């Protein structure tokens, strides 16, 4: 009975968003703004309700559920199925996707009002949720990859949503191409696993891998490295992180859903899901942690020097996912997923609050032209305060503190001193840029007419998502315990007495960061402005504003040589050889078409000549 109803509920989680997409895209523009939003939000709401039902069943009887819908293809032993698997990990992801997704869809109804093409917007958003649900529920790598590519496509479509500006189209291109680089790695990793193990079923892979490979086997290290490449591309980690900041060209709810809460964390999910492979490759796991540490530092410094609200948040997303990679590197998979969950809450809150500010200030998102908004936009201000405190891991009251503390503790417990230090520095930076963001946006004097004439958002659609996410971003959200027991490998056990010391230090760092930033931006604004506009300060500012010049580096090293190569290859030798045949055919055509004169006598003469030639040849042949 239980099994039967699960086999009905699980497909519904992705069929409902798919139905939304189909209704919206087949309506052919006949649905109005309100109807489109209703369809988009309702399908998500139903999916969220279904998820709640699934969660209730799972809590009543925690076990792995599997549903095989149908077989994809059948070639001898290769029989990938369209199958869904539910365990604690996918349930956590599913909850984030449908729950946070529903709130963001709801908020988008307010954010997008009066915009062109709302039907298109909701069709893409629902399609995204459909792909993302398949990604986390798929019981084999093929279905996971299908979802993985689907979310990439939706990300592309939604970044380029305002397609009238060509810059947005280029941003979408960039996101698509850069993440595709990672996807190629993932695909090759998948092929390698299939080649070695003969199956794509995830549970089967994890079961067979330790039987086939010893720890540190080069093949499994290569497979893990390739999977890591995919995760790095999707989760915007060094060196494939450059797309995320530009992806902010899309509407803000898209940034909240795709580029903060769900899609960019798919890499973390992938590594946690394939934990058995990564545990067999300790070097790659170590590399994961190092990538995370480097990214969180790089993004932290870059976030300090951004002027666009959304770009600050984008870099903070990179840095928070860096923390998740840090946790994965230490083998603390559950800590990574826990931080993934709290991050989804508070980053969605921050993005939606930023969206509220942006719409209220007539689409002004440059912090240099905002300021003094806390009186006019109390709800967005509250969202920023709660979300910002969670981002900066304010001790005890915020959700971010509990998850980040867990990650830092695991670094200490597993003996990664250097990575712990990087995490601490990153925490300090996080506090700095968070306070800077809030003070520049909400305090001081309004610096433009758009900020002076801000109109606060009204209505349930605007308020409810912000309030719910704000509640989830406090310590209440940290009470949600992802059901991950006995599912992910246990992390290292450390000396418990050090845990409290570490908590105190981490709390001290966060508070110190906040205090320093508040002192700098409230009291020493003039001093700061002077030092960032000349000499070394200005140079550093530009350097961090351009995110360590990595974009320029890629432009020089990859894009420009590639374009040069293309220009050279436009007239290459091989093309010339191929065109020779075309030229020959053209010449023959020219010659033969000249014989078509239309003169009857010429034809008769040619026939006679031809016949004579043939007869002569026959006569003279031996």
């Amino acid at each position, binding site marked *: 009975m239980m099994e039967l109803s699960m086999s009905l509920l699980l497909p519904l989680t992705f069929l409902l968003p798919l139905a939304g997409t189909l209704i919206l895209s087949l309506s052919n523009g006949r649905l109005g703004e309100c109807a489109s939003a209703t369809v988009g939000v309702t399908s998500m709401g139903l999916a969220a309700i279904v998820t709640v039902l699934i969660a209730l069943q799972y809590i009543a009887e925690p076990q792995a559920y599997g549903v095989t819908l149908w077989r994809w293809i059948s070639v001898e032993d290769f029989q990938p199925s369209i199958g869904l698997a539910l365990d604690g990990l996918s349930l956590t992801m599913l909850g984030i996707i449908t729950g946070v997704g529903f709130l963001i869809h709801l908020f988008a109804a307010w954010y997008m009002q009066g915009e062109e093409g709302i039907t298109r917007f909701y069709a893409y958003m629902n399609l995204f949720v459909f792909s993302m649900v398949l990604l986390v529920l798929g019981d084999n790598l093929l279905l996971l990859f299908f979802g993985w590519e689907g979310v990439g496509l939706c990300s592309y479509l939604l970044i380029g949503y305002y397609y009238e500006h060509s810059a947005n189209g280029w941003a979408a291109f960039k996101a698509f191409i850069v993440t595709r680089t990672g996807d190629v790695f993932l695909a090759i990793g998948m092929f390698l696993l299939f080649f070695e193990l003969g199956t794509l079923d995830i549970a089967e892979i994890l079961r067979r891998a330790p039987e086939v490979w010893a720890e540190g086997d080069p093949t499994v290290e290569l497979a893990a490295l390739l999977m890591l490449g995919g995760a790095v591309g999707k989760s915007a980690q060094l060196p494939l992180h450059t797309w995320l900041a530009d992806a902010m060209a899309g509407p803000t709810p898209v940034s909240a859903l795709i580029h903060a809460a769900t899609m960019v964390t798919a890499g973390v999910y992938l590594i946690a899901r394939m934990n058995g492979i990564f545990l067999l490759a300790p070097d790659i796991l170590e590399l994961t942690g190092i990538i995370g540490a480097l990214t969180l530092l790089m993004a932290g410094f870059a976030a300090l020097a951004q002027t666009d609200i959304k770009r600050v948040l984008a870099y903070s997303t990179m840095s928070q996912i860096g923390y998740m990679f840090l946790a994965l590197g230490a083998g603390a998979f559950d800590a990574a997923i826990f931080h993934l969950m709290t991050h989804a809450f508070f980053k969605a809150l921050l993005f939606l609050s930023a969206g509220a500010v942006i719409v209220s200030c007539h689409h002004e998102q440059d912090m240099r032209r905002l300021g003094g908004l806390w009186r006019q936009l109390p709800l967005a201000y509250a969202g920023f305060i709660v979300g910002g405190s969670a981002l900066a891991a304010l001790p005890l009251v915020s959700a971010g503190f509990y998850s980040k503390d867990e990650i830092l503790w695991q670094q200490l417990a597993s003996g990664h001193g250097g990575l712990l230090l990087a995490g601490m520095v990153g925490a300090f930076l996080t506090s700095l840029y968070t306070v800077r963001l809030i003070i520049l946006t909400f305090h001081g004097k309004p610096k433009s007419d758009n900020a002076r004439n801000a109109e606060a958002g009204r209505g349930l659609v605007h308020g409810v998502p912000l309030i719910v996410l704000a509640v989830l971003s406090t310590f209440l959200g940290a009470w949600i315990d992802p059901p991950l027991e006995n599912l992910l490998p246990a992390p290292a056990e450390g000396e418990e007495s050090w845990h409290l010391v570490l908590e105190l230090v981490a709390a001290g760092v966060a508070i110190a960061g906040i205090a320093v930033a508040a002192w700098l931006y409230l009291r020493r604004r003039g001093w700061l402005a002077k030092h960032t506009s000349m000499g070394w300060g200005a140079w550093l500012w530009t350097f961090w504003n351009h995110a360590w010049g990595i974009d320029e580096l890629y432009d020089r090293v990859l894009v420009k040589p590639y374009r040069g190569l293309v220009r050279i290859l436009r007239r290459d030798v091989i093309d010339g050889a191929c065109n020779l045949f075309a030229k020959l055919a053209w010449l023959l055509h020219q010659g033969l078409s000249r014989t078509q*004169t239309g003169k009857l006598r010429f034809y008769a003469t040619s026939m006679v000549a031809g016949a004579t030639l043939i007869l002569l040849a026959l006569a003279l042949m031996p």
Partner: protein
Amino acid sequence: MSGVPMEHGLVLAAMLFALGLAGLMFRRNMVFILMSLEIMLNSAGLAFIVGGTAWGQPEGQAMFLLVITLAAAEASVGLALLLQLNNRFKTLDTDAASRMRG
């Protein structure tokens, strides 16, 4: 009949054929072209008759009947074309109808 050797008959046929062919190649007037065609057909018919007589076979005369039928059909189609040519171009010059270069 048996006094005429086969070679003479065949040479006559070849000469007639050559005359017809020359007319076909060098004449521009469609009437003469059709006449040349008739001469060529008849030369072929003559060759069949000569051959059939020389070897005492009836197929030569049967083939000649076939050739005459063919010539009649050809003439009717050719004359129809000739009338059309005259109507459209007010001339019998075949080069005038070379617009399609076909």
